[in-house]
């Protein structure tokens, strides 16, 4: 089932029209576009970002992952020009923002909301005043400010906390205030800088739920950076992987998570992957030592795994060593580690048959 399913899952090619041929739909739909973007901090020889070409589509939730120091934060901050690029171009709605002056930047930033790991709320201002501040500095009339602040505090579920100071709020509540503040100008883009990294798992889930909800309801483009792979799995549509300032992999989350090509991506994803039981890791060998040896395979398949079909392909005695099924957006990703003993097929034939079933097959070794 796998290959045909995988093909069907991919978005169909755009229909060609006689008059208007949109050769690069990814470009014309791009909300944020980086072209050859580079950033070198003064006094540093190693660039923080280098040759980044990336399109972020309107209305999607786009994740940027990477180790700490990989340049995630710099890349995110280039979008609202908290960081000034030293090379290349940044297009937002086709406009190059790299040379904007303060006036143009102020207007740009009112169209781009941002939330932070440590919330960055003004401690001397109440919840209400914090959310009101962006409108106040923009000179919005009082009646309109009140309407808007009330509406947003209701959206994030804090209508009973108007006059409370941030110090009295929990982490999740603070981030909700941050979200309300970021959305108060009705932006078209929301930047999330490790927005859930300081929160416990339960609160993280509720904040991510809120982000998905506003992404849908307000058709907001969300760009988030995180070191938590589960955040990307549960929230993002597409993902890009940064390593030492360079883009090493990008694509649909289910594809990247299902079949990561780059070593960095695999390392980052390791915590979400099934691994061999520890007892077995010691026993595993590169080559079979006897006819009774079992081959250990790691299989990745999309959709709910049809085990009957798998057993038919493998033959012999199949043991499930480790595995799981996880949902990524509307898709299902199954990852199984199995050992196969006494298969009627030789090793290469076995792999060939397994590939009919699985999207990705990896031989981990042999036991026994």
């Amino acid at each position: 089932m796998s290959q045909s399913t995988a093909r069907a899952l991919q978005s169909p090619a755009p229909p060609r029209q006689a008059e208007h041929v949109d050769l690069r739909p990814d470009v014309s739909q791009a909300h944020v576009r980086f072209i050859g973007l580079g950033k070198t901090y003064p006094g540093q020889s190693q660039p923080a970002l280098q040759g980044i070409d990336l399109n972020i589509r309107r209305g999607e939730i786009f994740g940027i992952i990477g180790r700490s120091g990989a340049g995630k934060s710099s890349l995110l901050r280039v979008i609202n020009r908290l960081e000034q690029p030293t090379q290349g171009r940044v297009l937002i709605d086709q406009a190059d923002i790299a040379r904007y002056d303060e006036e143009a930047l102020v207007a740009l930033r009112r169209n781009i909301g941002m939330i932070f790991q440590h919330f960055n709320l003004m401690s001397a201002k109440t919840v209400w005043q914090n959310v009101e501040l962006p409108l106040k500095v923009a000179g919005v009339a009082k009646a309109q400010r009140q309407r808007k602040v009330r509406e947003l505090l209701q959206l994030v579920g804090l209508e009973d906390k108007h006059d409370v100071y941030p110090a009295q709020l929990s982490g999740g509540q603070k981030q909700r205030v941050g979200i309300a503040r970021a959305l108060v100008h009705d932006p078209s883009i929301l930047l999330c800088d490790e927005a859930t990294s300081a929160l416990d798992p339960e609160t993280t889930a509720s904040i991510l739920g809120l982000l998905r909800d506003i992404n849908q309801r307000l058709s907001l483009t969300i760009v988030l950076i995180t070191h938590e792979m589960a955040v990307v799995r549960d929230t993002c549509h597409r993902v890009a992987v940064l390593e030492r300032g360079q883009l090493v992999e990008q694509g649909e989350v289910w594809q990247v998570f299902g079949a990561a090509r780059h070593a960095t991506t695999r390392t980052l994803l390791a915590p979400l992957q099934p691994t061999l039981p520890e007892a077995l890791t010691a026993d595993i060998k590169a080559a079979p030592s006897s006819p009774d040896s079992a081959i250990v395979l790691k299989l990745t398949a999309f959709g709910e795994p049809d085990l009957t079909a798998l057993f038919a392909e493998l033959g012999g005695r199949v043991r499930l060593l480790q595995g799981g099924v996880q949902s990524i957006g509307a898709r299902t990703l199954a990852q199984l580690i199995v050992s196969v003993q006494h298969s009627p097929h030789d090793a290469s034939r076995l792999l060939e048959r397994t590939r009919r079933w699985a999207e990705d097959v990896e031989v981990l070794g042999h036991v026994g």
Partner: protein
Amino acid sequence: MWVDRLLEGLFDTLLMVGVSSLIALLVGVPMAVMLVTSDRGGIYAAPLLNRVLAAFVNLFRSVPFLILMVALIPFTRWVVGTTYGVWAAIVPLTIAATPFFARIAEVSLREVDHGLVEAAQAMGCRRWHIVWHVLLPEALPGIVGGFTITLVTLINSSAMAGAIGAGGLGDIAYRYGYQRFDSQIMLTVIAMLVALVALIQLGGDRLARGLNKR
């Protein structure tokens, strides 16, 4: 009669401290804002201006008050027309207190989390919005604390100014308490100064605590 003299001394001290601290507040806060924002990486980064300003502040802070007072005599005469009395003391007191307070206020302003400045920039604040809506309100408890210290230091310095004929409690303690060995006057003045300092410290602490929402 003693009571009158003491009350007059108290009034003179309060006048000297009040006027010079008020000017120190009005000049010191903008000076502190300039010191912080003109520094490298600040929102109005201007390293040269920053260095000149910092050198100027250090210059006046490193001269002991007694010497500063004497050195400023020509300037004082030019400003208030005399070198004697309360108003003549206010000039050097102000010039000593302003850089002192500016440095303390600067420390409070520097302690404002850079993330807040970044958040303000990200929400579309202009630079003076950041000063007005972020830096000053967030640093206010610290600035109030710094102003309290400045007031207490000014009471201390005003007593010194009193000794060279500026009036005030210091003058009374020096002339009657020290030169005429009247220990009763001396103790009374000390008690008044202690009470004054305690009152200022208490009020300042209360206010700073009330303003601190962290």
